[in-house]
């Protein structure tokens, strides 16, 4: 397999009157051909910045990037015809119709006129193509954006939060669209916060946190290498759950309280839980290891799991992967 997209050591510092902000801090990413690749990260972690840099909209402060084997931004204009992209809910000039908007793009990019009708059909906007974009709903604008990215039949499709504003039917259509595109040989890079969705459609993922890569690889690999050491704990009915939770927290456990049970996030050795509780004569009725899903791996890697009684601020995320478990 060949890499369609390669990024190494990417640096970007935004400078403004209020000071400097390091958005990307040596970020790496590799996407193989023919894959659907998920690009995940908490708010403000640098996803959009990465994609904008890749597409030549902003100048990086350091690092190397290549698309389809060509260095960018130096050779961007050679590969631009093969890259379709939407970056963070693109806006369109509101007074033009979808048809006009796409026709003008097609003309500027030397794309056949028939593609316009084809992509409008594909994203389900055929019957509304003659309406002004100003009158579109959020999801319709998003569909138009996807249509504009598909217009030039790209080899590499880059979609920044394409599901933003789509209805459940639309999300499902998007999912099968991605799969079909990937099967036809297109490589898709997809940034999204809907992790269930990513787990369903992506072959591989890159997780970014605070401007650095914290995990990468196929979805199965990422899940396996960060197997959740979480266990679900249920107590005998009528037993005071709060006491047990406080006891475990005092011993260093990361506890998340649910309605009728709680989970311990970092239980390397579940026996520890039963021993601590049994010493206080609290008995466990259920103790099941929770299956690792992308969401918990994501929360663990980025350190953005909600903690009770604290409001996490956007810039508070893990810089490096947390190490070790509790109770081992």
């Amino acid at each position: 397999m060949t890499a369609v997209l390669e990024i190494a050591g990417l640096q970007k510092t935004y400078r403004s009157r209020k000071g400097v902000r390091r958005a990307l801090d040596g970020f790496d990413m590799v996407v193989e051909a023919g894959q659907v690749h998920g690009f995940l990260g908490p708010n403000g972690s640098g996803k959009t910045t990465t994609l904008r840099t890749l597409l030549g909209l902003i100048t990086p402060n350091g690092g190397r990037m290549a698309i389809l084997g060509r260095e960018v931004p130096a050779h961007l204009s050679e590969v631009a015809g093969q890259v379709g992209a939407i970056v963070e809910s693109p806006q369109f000039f509101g007074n033009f119709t979808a048809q006009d908007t796409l026709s003008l793009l097609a003309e500027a990019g030397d794309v056949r006129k028939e593609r316009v009708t084809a992509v409008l059909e594909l994203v389900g906007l055929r019957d509304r193509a003659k309406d002004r974009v100003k009158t579109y709903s959020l999801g319709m604008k998003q569909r138009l954006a996807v249509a504009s990215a598909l217009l030039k039949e790209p080899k590499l499709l880059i979609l920044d939060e394409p599901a933003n504003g789509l209805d459940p039917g639309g999300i499902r259509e998007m999912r099968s669209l991605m799969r079909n595109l990937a099967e036809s040989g297109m490589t898709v890079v997809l940034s999204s916060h809907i992790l269930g969705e990513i787990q369903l459609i992506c072959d591989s993922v890159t997780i970014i946190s605070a401007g650095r890569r914290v995990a990468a690889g196929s979805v199965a690999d990422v899940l396996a290498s960060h197997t959740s050491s979480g266990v679900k704990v249920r107590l005998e009915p009528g037993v005071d759950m709060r006491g047990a939770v406080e006891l475990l927290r005092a011993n260093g456990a990361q506890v998340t309280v649910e309605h009728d049970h709680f989970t311990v996030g970092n239980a390397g050795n579940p026996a520890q839980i039963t021993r601590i509780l049994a010493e206080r004569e609290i008995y466990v009725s259920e103790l099941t290891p929770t299956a690792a899903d992308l969401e918990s791996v994501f929360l663990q890697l980025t350190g953005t799991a909600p903690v009770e009684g604290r409001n996490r601020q956007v810039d508070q995320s893990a810089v490096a992967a947390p190490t070790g478990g509790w109770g081992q």
Partner: protein
Amino acid sequence: MSLYTAETKRLTKRRFTRLFLLGTTLILLAIAAGMFFTNEKVGPSQIASAQAQAQQDFQRATEQYQRDQAACQAPGANPASCEGMYQPTQDDFQAQWYMPPTFDFRENFPDMVTTLAALLALVAFIVGASFVGAEWSSGGMMNLLLWRPQRLQVLGTKLLALLVLFTVLTVVYSAIWTGIFVGIAEARGTTDSMTSGAWQSIALMELRGLALVLVAAAIGFGLASLGRHTAMALGVTIGAVIVFQFGLGTVLSLAKVKFAEAYLIPVWMIAWMDKEIKLEDYNSCNYSSAGGCQPDSLTLTWPMAGGLLAGIFVLIVGASMWAMRSRDIT
């Protein structure tokens, strides 16, 4: 080339462009209609009636004079008050001042050329600013750059599309405008004094008008692109106009700066269109035995004004291109 046609379509498809051009056309037609109805052709009967009226007024003034003379020389009146009295002469009542307004093409059309150029320049400025400003603020520019990552080419092509459109418009409007006023002059005045030299000078003036329109379009475009918003370009201009017209004018005249008008934009526009403008400083006196006090004067010529226009054009277009090249588009 495909980018150029796409940009021309984008520009002409915009309702903003169309509305402004329609408005301009209506205003121009209203001006032409006004000129048509306020002027009339001068023939023997108009000359005769003007002469009669001049003669009548002269007569009346003379009678008044004689009555006043008689009154002050009457016994009991103060004879000294007679001394300052002025006796009207035939020369004070010339028939030409009693002629109805008539459209002499050679004399009156240059002002109409300036009117057309000024109006088109204003429209070019606003349309240019809104064309690129709306692209920036709506995110259309970013979309386009995803398709064509050559930034200077994209901005340059947009500017080119704008300038070509306004060149075509100005040439067509000037031709029609000239045609309309030749018609008005023939119906309501005269084209008799039009020699080929006079026609040439009109054509050159229209050419200078074209340059003015194009510079205005480029300035609007450049400012809006620098500020990435239409409102920015319009704001800067309104600010500049207020500062220049009122603020600077007042301050300079308070400070008794010589030739304060030379700092005002319209003065330069007139210098450009009329080939020169002469500013005089009435606080000065260059005495000569022949003419008495002659004020100092400063003549602004069209090459000076042209240099200024070219300078502003290069500065603003250059700055917007440089900003386009180097800045982050987010």
